[in-house]
């Protein structure tokens, strides 16, 4: 109602005969809508060019193996699909630390020793980088901070909530450590029973990258493409206690690679008396499931 009033108000073009003017506007709008319905002219009277999506990249949504084995998976709705849009970075190799993280992440994903993954994706592999992603069907738009710098008047859309199985990050981190210490130790972890407790993480997206996995039948790996988000995790200093679910953090932690499917939505932050509070408008699956 308020919006309707505002619309009429903006369209009063006569100060002298405002009421006649209002009547005329309301009538002409009704007639136009009526004609649109009668003759099916919605597209023809929609005076805007079709939006070009030539530069967008859509991948079939990457189903992470861990998620699909998840006994709770039936609770969540079908996986979203994302669209990556420019700004697009040049195709370059990853910094070594990020590459190591990627190897560890993929090793977890395929449940293969990192040595195999390293052979498939050597250090000098070039990746496509993107600076923005949005979820189809009206989901959030997310910015990757390294490729899409924050303008002085814009609002920060780079912090997100990630809902992932609890072991996902830890496992990856462990693997990195172990890789650095002793590569052979992976073998022992290969048949590790995965644990499926969903956990929320918050962090800042640095970049989106497309990882193309080559076909490797000898290892049982099929060619596939995944979208990963490099996310700098926040270190929660005061976890949420009440139902307002405000988490506080003071510092950012290590960078992780997360399947884009696990990135759920953007979150807001408020700086309050020296701390950052994370505000999350969505309901977390993790919380729903962990505390039934």
């Amino acid at each position, binding site marked *: 109602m308020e919006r309707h009033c505002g619309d009429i108000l903006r369209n009063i073009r006569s100060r002298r005969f405002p009421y006649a003017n209002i009547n005329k506007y309301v009538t002409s709008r009704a007639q136009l809508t009526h004609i649109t319905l009668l003759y099916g002219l919605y597209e023809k009277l929609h005076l805007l060019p079709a939006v070009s999506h030539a530069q967008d990249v859509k991948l079939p949504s990457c189903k992470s193996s861990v998620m699909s084995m998840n006994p709770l998976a039936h609770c969540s709705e079908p996986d979203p699909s994302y669209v990556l849009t420019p700004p697009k970075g040049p195709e370059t190799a990853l910094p070594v630390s990020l590459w190591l993280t990627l190897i560890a992440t993929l090793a977890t994903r395929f449940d293969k020793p990192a040595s195999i993954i390293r052979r498939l994706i050597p250090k000098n592999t070039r990746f496509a980088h993107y600076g923005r992603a949005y979820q189809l069907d009206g989901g959030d738009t997310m910015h990757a901070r390294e490729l899409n710098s924050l303008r002085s008047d814009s609002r920060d859309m780079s912090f997100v909530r990630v809902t992932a199985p609890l072991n996902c990050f830890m496992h990856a981190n462990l693997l990195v450590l172990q890789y650095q210490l002793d590569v052979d130790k992976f073998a022992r972890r290969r048949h590790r029973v995965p644990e499926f407790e969903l956990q929320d993480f918050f962090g800042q997206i640095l970049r989106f990258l497309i990882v193309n996995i080559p076909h490797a039948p000898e290892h049982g790996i099929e060619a596939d493409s995944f979208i990963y988000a490099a996310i700098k995790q926040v270190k929660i200093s005061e976890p949420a206690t009440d139902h*307002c679910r405000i988490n506080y953090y003071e510092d950012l932690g290590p960078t992780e690679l997360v399947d884009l499917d696990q990135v759920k939505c953007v979150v807001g932050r408020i700086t309050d008396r020296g701390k950052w509070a994370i505000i999350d408008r969505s309901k977390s699956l993790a919380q729903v499931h962990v505390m039934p």
Partner: protein
Amino acid sequence: MDVLIEGALLDESDLTLLRAYALKVEDGLTDKTFNKLRYAFPQSPIDSLKNTEKRVQFLSGFQPVRYHCCPSSCVCYTGPYESLTKCPKCNIDRHKADGMTPQAYYEYLPIIPRLRAMLANSSYARKMQYRSNRQHDPMKITDIFDGTHYRSLRETFVTVGDEELPTWFFSDPRDIALGLSTDGFGPFKRRTKTAWPIILFNYNLPPEERFLKGNVISIGVIPGPKKPSDLDSFFWPLVQELLQLEIGVSAFDAITKVTFLLHAYLIVVFGDIPAVSMIMRMKGHNAISPCRMCTITGIRIPSSRVTVHYVPLCRDGFPNSQGQYHPSALPLRDHASFIEQAKEVQYASSNADFERLATKYGIKGVPLLSTLSSLSFPVSFPYDFMHLIWTNLIPNLILLWTGKFKDLPHDGEDYVLAPAVWQAIGEATVNAGKTIPAAFGSRVPNIASEKAQMTAETHSIWTLYIAPTLLKGRFVQARYYKHFVELVRLLTLCLEFEITQVQVQDLERGFQRWVQVYERYVFLVSSRTLSDRLTAYTTNTIRCAWLLVPSPFMHCCTLRRLSKLWVQSGLIGHFQWSAIVVTSSVT
């Protein structure tokens, strides 16, 4: 029947004309600019405005019906006033000096041809199947169609006048559910003059579309300069059409390609409190019996000459009134008693009797809309969530916290925040604008210094997301924060896309408790001397929080960024009210 040839081809010249006209209407070009287009783009075959309008009217096949009305918009000369030559309220002549030309017009846009056109357009008709296709789950409330009013209508026969028709409400999947809304707005900066647009919403459309601008059915604007003194005379043509639609009008169904009897029923009416009071012919929110849902009575401020009435639950300590209302046992109105009281007032034997009864009941007469059997008084007239919470309750709470609530002694009260603290909260609010993504809604201005810039939307964002952080640890006593956070919890629950019956009970009890605690806090500290507006509104809250309706304003302005409900694992429907009329809990 109108020309309803779907997809009938228009030739290129008609399309050119319509495109130019669409540009004018959508972007608010003045008539002068439109006439200039021909000369600005000489190659384009744009016709003059006069010819264009003529052609548009011909193509649309319908035009507004003009009714005479009083130039100070007291009444419209319809129904009982049809043959009058002077306004019954202000005695101004109906016609100009020539005795022929009326002084003012009310232009009414008929709805029947438009509803027909909707069903004759196959893609639109398919969208309108939402109502019949949705599955009702008795344990959950996701839409107005889960409310008890709609559910009980489905088991009722349509009644027109005293005659019961052999049809059930909504027995045909194509039957349309409508909602009515009206509100006054000032066309000029000094808001001394008001115009009253009347609109209908088509509830057969899916919830994410029904409040979009293009889907709103505008039926006319009651011209200013004053608030109509008899609104029902302006509703006369609408009610006539709605009665016809209750009986049924022939229409063409584009999906099955058959002619059928189209029914449409008005099931809900909403707006702010003054507008709905006017529609229901009630005395309004300052009356002795101010509430449309119950017969709670107001009390005046002791030792004050102001005649405004307030309705706190707890009456102890007020002169001439004792005891208290219990929020779970309020004296609710029902349809039969409402209509009976309205009739009693309408047919009062003398003026004095009329005044006495009207004051007693808070009703001024039988509203015209009561002739529609699809409406039930007062449950079809729920309180509007946006006005109730975001433009009344929250601003009032803020006034209380900042010690600016009118006429209240705030000195030394521990619920008041120090000015410096409030200033800091205001600044932190502005700064949060940069780090809260646009998906949350618009930026919130400095709530401490730019109060005038705050809108319902920014109030809601501030309350739900920003305030719980910024108010933490700011009150002298933590209980005030806890009390506020409890409110946030309840409001968040109200805004879920889907609520269960268990949650409805939680809401009901939660709001009752919240108001009782509120009154305890405020009354205790102010030694029982106040009765303030806030209480009036919070009392409404308890009764009516579970009678929420979607607020069209919030819907429309933000549906573009419709949150991805399922994918984002159950986002709170911040901008998409759960659209509920849960009358079930009001027993």
